[in-house]
Each structure stands twice: as structure tokens, then as C-alpha cells.
């Protein structure tokens, strides 16, 4: 029964996962391409830079691993990942309850707790695995563009960032169950996490 339910959920999630994966991957590729461009536009004389550019910022721009680390974990995951977490959270249970399709599961011997835990666990695992896979892929992509990346620094940070996505997903799920309507749930979550 669990295998059937997991297969069913993966079937339901597949397009969201694919879009999320491609969005993160696209962001990574863009980051790698932009890194070289940023290096080129930086003036050799750093005194010409505006005062808000601190030495730490310059250091992070100078070091490829640091640049990747800060961009991916500080920008891409919180932005793309949060969006994905909200989409997963509001699409997890509320649409099934709204459309009545959940009764197909409940009247075929699946208990409510099992439906809830399988759906939630899969969403959490997805939100952890997806950024991790993309993080791992940054290495080969970087090498392909002639950069060297210190991976060990990247992975724990992504793991922490991914766990925060699980929290976003859980809150979105809760809001969607309260609001019971997908669009308004999405708007509420976007306002909440956008702020």
C-alpha cells in the first residue's frame, strides 16, 4: 500500500519537481556564467568602488566558492526554493479535499494519518533532495567552465537552507488547510514569506 501511495504522490509531484529542478539548475548555470562577467567589470583600483562595497564583499567576489556559496544558499534557495515549498505545501492536501479525490483513497482502506504522513514526508524529502542534487551538480558544472569548487563548504549550508524550506512547506500546508482554496492560500503564503 505504501509503495502505491508513494508512486501516486510522485506522479502528482513530478511536474512541480521537474520545474523546481530546472529553475534551480538554471540559476546555478546563470551564476557560473555571471561570475566571469562580474570579474571582468570589477575595476583594478578598488578605491573607485562605491563606499557600500566592503572588503568582505570584495573577498567573496574574488573567491569562486564563496561567491557560489553566498549566491546559491543566500539567494537562489530562499527565492526559488521558497516558491517551490509554497507550491508543494498548498497543493498537498487542500486540492484533494476540495475536489473530493481524497475519498478515493479513504474508501479504499487508506487511513487519514497514512495519507498525511506519506504526502508530508515526500514533500519534505523532495525539498531537501532537490537543492542537494543541484548543489552536487555545481561541482561538475564549475569544472566544465574552468572553476574549482570546495564542495564540503557548500553541502552543509544547502542542507540547512533546505530544512528551512521544509518549514515553509509545513506553514503553507497549514494555511491551505485553513483557507481551503488554492489561490487564496498561495496569496496568503506569498505575502507571509515575501515579507
Amino acid at each position: 500500500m505504501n509503495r502505491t501511495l508513494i508512486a501516486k504522490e510522485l506522479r502528482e509531484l513530478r511536474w512541480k519537481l521537474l520545474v523546481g529542478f530546472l529553475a534551480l539548475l538554471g540559476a546555478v548555470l546563470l551564476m557560473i556564467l555571471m561570475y566571469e562577467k562580474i570579474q571582468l567589470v570589477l575595476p583594478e583600483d578598488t578605491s573607485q568602488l562605491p563606499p557600500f562595497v566592503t572588503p568582505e564583499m570584495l573577498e567573496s567576489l574574488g573567491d569562486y566558492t564563496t561567491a557560489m556559496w553566498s549566491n546559491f544558499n543566500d539567494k537562489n534557495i530562499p527565492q526559488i526554493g521558497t516558491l517551490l515549498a509554497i507550491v508543494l505545501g498548498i497543493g498537498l492536501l487542500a486540492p484533494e479535499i476540495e475536489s473530493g479525490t481524497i475519498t478515493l483513497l479513504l474508501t479504499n482502506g487508506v487511513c487519514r494519518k497514512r495519507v498525511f504522513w506519506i504526502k508530508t514526508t515526500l514533500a519534505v524529502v523532495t525539498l531537501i533532495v532537490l537543492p542537494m542534487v543541484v548543489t552536487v551538480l555545481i561541482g561538475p558544472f564549475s569544472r566544465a567552465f574552468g572553476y574549482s569548487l570546495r564542495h564540503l563548504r557548500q553541502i552543509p549550508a544547502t542542507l540547512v537552507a533546505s530544512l528551512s524550506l521544509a518549514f515553509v512547506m509545513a506553514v503553507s500546508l497549514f494555511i491551505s488547510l485553513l483557507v481551503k482554496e488554492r489561490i487564496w492560500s498561495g496569496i496568503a503564503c506569498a505575502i507571509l514569506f515575501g515579507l
Partner: protein
Amino acid sequence: MEVIKTRGLTKIYGAKIAVADLDLSVQRGSVFGFLGPNGSGKSTTVKMLLGLRTPSRGTAQVLGFDSSRESHLIGQRVGYVPELGNLYPHWTVQATIELVRGLRPTWDDSFASHLLSLFELPLKQRVGKLSKGMQRQLALLLAMAPRPELLILDEPTSGLDPIKRQEFLQVLMEGVADTGQTVFFSSHNMTEVERVADTIGILYNGRLVVSGALEELKCSVKRIRVVLPNRDSLQLQQPVRSIEGDNGQWILTVERGVEKVLAELRTMEPVALQVYDLALEDIFMIYGGGEGHEPNTDR
């Protein structure tokens, strides 16, 4: 043995009592027609039986399991065709069948194939693109293929044209005849219930107003036309459900003891005395309030 047993089953939504103190008993192997006008509480009752709604009070047992606490055990043994579709519209027929097949260990592949070819369901078609009739057939296939002990059908033929309805009922009855399954058939369509049911219960305003074997009910409930030209009014000692008419002509509706009523009427020397059998539809109109009567809850 009772397959379905409810005691004082009640569901209240705000100020509205959807189902009130329902005492229902469905015996194993019977085809129980659960009748009632729209909004009488049939679907709410079905949902409570399946554990999809929690009763406000009272208990419901299905196959010996408590529907509030053990609904998943009921789900493993029951086939359910809902009033409104509960299938994933963007899934294909094949994927939908595979899903339910994976959830039901008792799934009978050969029977499912038989039903699939009988209904001519296109496996690659998305469920949402199927006609309403085909969606109903798919729902019936999903309910019957696990060979459940009990089939619960909630208005299964609503929205189907007469031919599809006929086919649906035929497949249902053939399947049931083969296995001796119990069927709980909720409907407001008298004709189809009369065709398939051996026992009925009529729900009116959330209350069970009559329940019993269909043939017994049809034998006991009669209508009598009597012409007594010399009388202005008619009063009987024998109990009757209703007396209508005037000017020496009356129509009596008798629930039981028709022979005693006839004997009393004969003593009045009528010029005409006729007894009419009633169809289920007429009985439903009597108990379901269709004739403006208050339903009799004594029965």
C-alpha cells in the same frame, strides 16, 4: 447477520439536522434500496457509514467495524461508488485502475478485465475526458473488482441516460448474483430501486420513515376506492393511513390489515369497492411526504 447497523445515528450541521436518530439494519446478502427525496440525508448517511463524516451522535457499524474509529478497515472490505466523481481527472483510466489495484489486496484481475472489456473503457484516455456514463462505469469497476463484501452505491446512476442506466444496473446485478454480495443502494429513482432491491428504507427529512422487505411492503400497503352514495362522511374503526374524497366517493390508503378494512367497508353496503396494488413509487410518495402527508414514524 447484520452488515450495516446504526443506532441513533445523527448528523447536525449548524441548525440543520441532516440525519436524525437513524436506526438502520441491513442483512448480509440483501440488496437494500435506500430511498429518499433530494436533501433527505441519504448521502450524509452513506458518508457516515464510510467514516467520511463524523456522526454528531449515535453509532454506525459496517461489517462489524465502528465507522468513526475503524473506517480504514471498512474501506478495505467495501466497494463505494459516490454520487459525485472522486477520481483524478488528469489521470488515465489505466493509472487510476493501477492505483486502486495497488491499494486493494483482494483485487480480482480477471474480473477487472472482464468489466473493462464490457464497458469498453479506453485505458489511455484521461478520466476527465470520459463521458459521465463512462466515469460511472469506471467507478463501478473500481468498486467491484476488489470483490468487496459490501457495495455501497450513492446515487450511482444519476445523470446517466436510460440506456446507460440499464447497462449499469445489469452489470451490477450480474456481479452481485455471482458473489452474493450485500448491496446498499442509495437513490431517489424508484424504478431502478424496484428493479434491484429486495429490502428498502425510506428516508424523509433525515428520518427513516419505513424499512422492510419490498414485497411485504407492497403486499401490506394498499389503496381502496369505495363508493357510498348515502354518506356525507366516512369514519372507520380500523386504522387507515389516510382518507381522501367526498360526495360518497373515497380513496383510502391502508398500511396493514387491508382485509379488516374491507370487511368493515362491506358492512356499509358500498356500490363499488376496489383494491389497488401500489408501485414502489406510490409507496414512496406516501411515506416520503409526496402527497402532502406528514410521514408516519410509528412504523
